[in-house]
């Protein structure tokens, strides 16, 4: 098979980086935009070999392996399975849309902006494709810098506050992830993720490693008590920043749960499942309730993200196939639908120069195409049958009821809330008393170009989800079976001298210790 020899994933990671470098030689703003668009389309074409993904195989495909720092066991190890291939595809597909939706929105420092976009893309693809813990961590952190700059330089009036909050929250969360990485290396003897998934660890070890990883991922998702950075970042970020944030970055948190927490520390995950389910339910209800009270359109969508991601984590922590499928579907769906909604808010903002609902009333009469698409995405957002989110939410509900009935029932108000705030918003935008909209043009060609692909996938996944099942099922089943492996009663190779650390240090002048 040709695609097996071609280093597809490396190309996907390094091609945008090469594009970044080339940007420095382009002076003209227009040229920069066209060039970046071209790069993003070529990147999309480079992802085509991923269509050769062999369905029904649980293992990793398109694997690339090369030593990196051999003396420390670091490897350049890439590969995708049914979970990550979808995320890689989503990341690559979002890039051209981001370029298009910032075509006229971003007017200053255009080159640097597109530099950040391309850099983000390579880091995000890297996160989903990395199979070496350290490589994963490198991409995971590297992506923070361009995202910080996207918010801090091109953001709204409160951008300084929002960007620093985003940066501090996520980086502080992931410092303990690094400790977990180190601990796994010592206990498992390798940085390679597929091998670490096969090993057994003691319960105590799993308990602490799960906690260290879960905090990092929960902040990224974000789950309920850690969500406060998200609305600030979403509202202040430029459109493309919001789209990337919603479509790709938030997925990294849930991807982390699927890739690390469940297969590597199953006993820890099982132990904390109740708590995680309750937090997920809290996110769903809280996100919906707060969204109901907002008057800023972007804030409504930001809080709706908290609710939607709550569904994803709920699906993950019910530990059954339906739930996991639903979670993965919701990750995709949220990326498409919420990304599209953010792009539409950006388009509305370019006309009204306001994100308040009250300044965007009555668009239905003058901007029918705009409102029609908005309606589609809004319906998709609360899971209307026939749209993509219905499939995902339905599966999550199925999984939740399979686990315990009360879990399923507790999530129902969340779905109702979603319908409430989305319909209320849509109604006012479509039929409200018009606020000086008569002069605004309807969607132009560029806007059609970035909204139609999203609309297509909303309906495609909604009506024919079959092929996606086939892609993800084998890997998810494999993941769930890995969770069944027994807890080890030892902590891998015992350290040469395991002293009590602090306890012993406290008895500093004592007689213990020594060679």
């Amino acid at each position, binding site marked *: 098979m040709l695609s097996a020899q071609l280093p597809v994933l490396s190309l996907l990671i390094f091609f945008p980086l090469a594009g970044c470098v080339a940007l420095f030689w382009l002076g003209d703003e227009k040229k920069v935009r066209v060039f970046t668009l071209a790069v993003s389309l070529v990147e999309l074409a480079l992802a085509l070999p991923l269509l050769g993904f062999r369905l029904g195989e649980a293992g990793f495909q398109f694997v690339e392996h090369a030593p*990196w*720092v*051999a*003396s*420390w066991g670091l490897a350049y190890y890439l590969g995708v399975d049914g979970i990550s291939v979808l995320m890689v595809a989503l990341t690559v597909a979002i890039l051209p849309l981001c370029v298009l939706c910032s075509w006229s929105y971003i007017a200053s420092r255009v080159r640097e902006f597109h530099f950040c976009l391309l850099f983000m893309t390579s880091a995000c693809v890297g996160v989903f494709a990395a199979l070496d813990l*350290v490589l994963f*961590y*490198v*991409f995971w*952190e*590297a992506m*923070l*810098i361009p995202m910080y*700059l996207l918010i*801090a*330089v091109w953001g709204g009036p409160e*951008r*300084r506050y929002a*960007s*620093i909050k985003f*940066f*501090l929250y996520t*980086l*502080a969360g992931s*410092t*303990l992830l*690094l*400790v977990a*990485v*180190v*601990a796994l*290396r*010592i*206990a498992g003897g390798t940085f390679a993720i597929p091998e670490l998934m096969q090993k057994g660890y003691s319960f105590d070890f799993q308990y602490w490693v799960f906690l260290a990883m879960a905090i990092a991922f929960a902040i990224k998702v974000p789950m309920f008590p850690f969500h406060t950075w998200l609305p600030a970042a979403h509202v202040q970020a430029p459109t493309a920043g919001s789209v990337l944030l919603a479509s790709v970055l938030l997925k990294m948190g849930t991807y982390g749960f699927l890739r690390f927490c469940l297969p590597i520390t199953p006993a820890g995950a099982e132990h904390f499942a109740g708590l995680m389910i309750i937090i997920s339910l809290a996110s769903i209800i809280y996100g919906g309730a707060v969204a109901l009270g907002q008057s800023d359109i972007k804030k409504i969508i930001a809080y709706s993200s908290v609710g939607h991601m709550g569904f994803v984590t709920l699906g993950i922590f019910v530990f059954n196939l339906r739930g996991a499928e639903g979670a993965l579907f919701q990750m995709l769906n949220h990326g498409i639908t919420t990304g599209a909604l953010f792009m539409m808010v950006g388009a509305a903002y370019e006309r009204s120069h306001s994100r308040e609902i009250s300044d965007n009333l009555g668009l239905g009469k003058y901007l029918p195409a705009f409102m029609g698409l908005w309606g589609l995405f809004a319906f998709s957002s609360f899971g209307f049958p026939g749209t993509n989110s219905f499939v995902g939410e339905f599966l999550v509900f199925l999984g939740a009821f399979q686990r315990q009935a009360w879990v399923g029932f507790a999530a129902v108000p969340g779905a109702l809330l979603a319908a409430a705030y989305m319909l209320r918003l849509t109604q006012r935008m479509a039929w409200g008393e018009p606020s000086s909209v008569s002069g605004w043009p309807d969607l132009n060609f560029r806007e059609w170009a970035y909204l139609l692909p999203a609309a297509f996938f909303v309906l495609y996944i909604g009506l024919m989800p079959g092929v996606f099942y086939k892609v993800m099922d084998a890997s998810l089943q494999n993941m769930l079976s890995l969770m069944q492996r027994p807890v080890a009663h030892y902590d891998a190779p015992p*350290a*040469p*001298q*395991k*002293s*009590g*650390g*602090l306890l*012993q*240090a406290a008895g*500093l*002048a004592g*007689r*213990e*210790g*020594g*060679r």
Partner: protein
Amino acid sequence: MDFRPELVISESFQFLVVAALFFQSLLYKVVSIRMRSWLPWVAGLGVAVNLFCLNTQGTMFYGSYQVDQLSQYFKVIVALGFFFASLNATRQPTLPHEKRYDYFLFMALSAWGLMLMASAVELITIYLALELSSYSLYAILPLRSKDRQAAEAGIKYILFGAVATALALYGFSYILATQHTSYLATLAIYTWTWADSPLAVVGLVLFLGGMLYKLALFPFHFWAPDVYQGASNETAAFVATLPKLGAMVVLIRLGALLTPGLEITHLLAILAAVSMTWGNLGALAQRDVKRLLGYSTVAHAGYMIMGLMPGNAEGLAAAGFYALVYVLMNLTCFWVLSRVAADGRNLYLEDLNGLHRRSPAMALALAVGAFALVGLPPTGGFMGKLFLFTAAWGHGYDWLVIVAALNAAISIYYYLNLVRHAYTQDQPGREPAAQPEPRFSAFWAGALALLLLFLGVLPGPAFNLALRAGEALLKLGG
């Protein structure tokens, strides 16, 4: 006399630099050559010479002076640091013209002392090399026009330094009295538990104190922020980086004596933890960028000590690698400070506002330096931290790794502040006409930033050198 010149090519080269500076200092009324026209290039040649001598090995002076992989590795870093520091200092606005030659003479002398220190494997030799490098620093610290703070910084450094040295000598006497040798190789055979020889332990702790003073580890850290603040930007760049190398190389050699579980190791672990926390918390409150970097040094001293905890080759190598990264990160930040403060004043965070418009290259270099100090990939700072954490985990000091990780979280705020001021805050009112950046400063800032990124993406070559050094050291000492 047991002297083999072929072993000490790199030191000899540095000595020739010192000698040349000495003669120029004597004859400056007769021949006056501009410093910047020759010194940096000779220092750059020195880096090449040191790289060339990387594989030299042997001992001389009856085993008190040892040229091995560790010493050669550190000599390369000293040469590299001296190159950048002297390049930086040639454009020093606050240096009185007539003292120019003496300044560089002492700077080169100090670097020479550090090179000797890298090879010293006997306590008296270590002590002599330490003093050689310190005395030169005492002389250059107050050289900042007629600045009173600089004088204060000089006095502080001398007084604290003298006390620390006295303590080290006192400790040395204990070691000699109880173990009857001053050779590290022999000392490594003894056990260093409190139970076996309490006096030796006390002596070693006191001797370590002298090194920890150079490293600015808690509780010997008080001088760092004040001295950096008082000294000129360029002098601070030197003081903040190179002397730490001397301290680190000696600590790594002594690290071969330490095993996990010893009282001294526990003590060092606690000091490291306190040092990180203290330094990071102190830095949070700073407005003066040099004071901020001073406190950050205290925190980084704590990180570096982590490498000594496990007492194996990996740990020592991690510490050695981190020393290299540390020097480069700080030189990058100080380079930017020195260039931005064209009149040589102290910079406050607000002075960095809008730097990305005034000089994009400086802002970018500062961002790389700051993110490296945080330990963010893809910079060398991340790789350094990863190596340190991995080495220290699983030897009974897991709590120290967790403390270090939490400290990294604290430190994000103030390092990010540097970037935030440079990138997101514009100077109100003054919309600066983008003046063309001097090629010189942009080029070398870029070189430093690229080096940091290179160490982050491909740490292999440098790290393997450190690892070989660590392995050789343990084979010899153990």
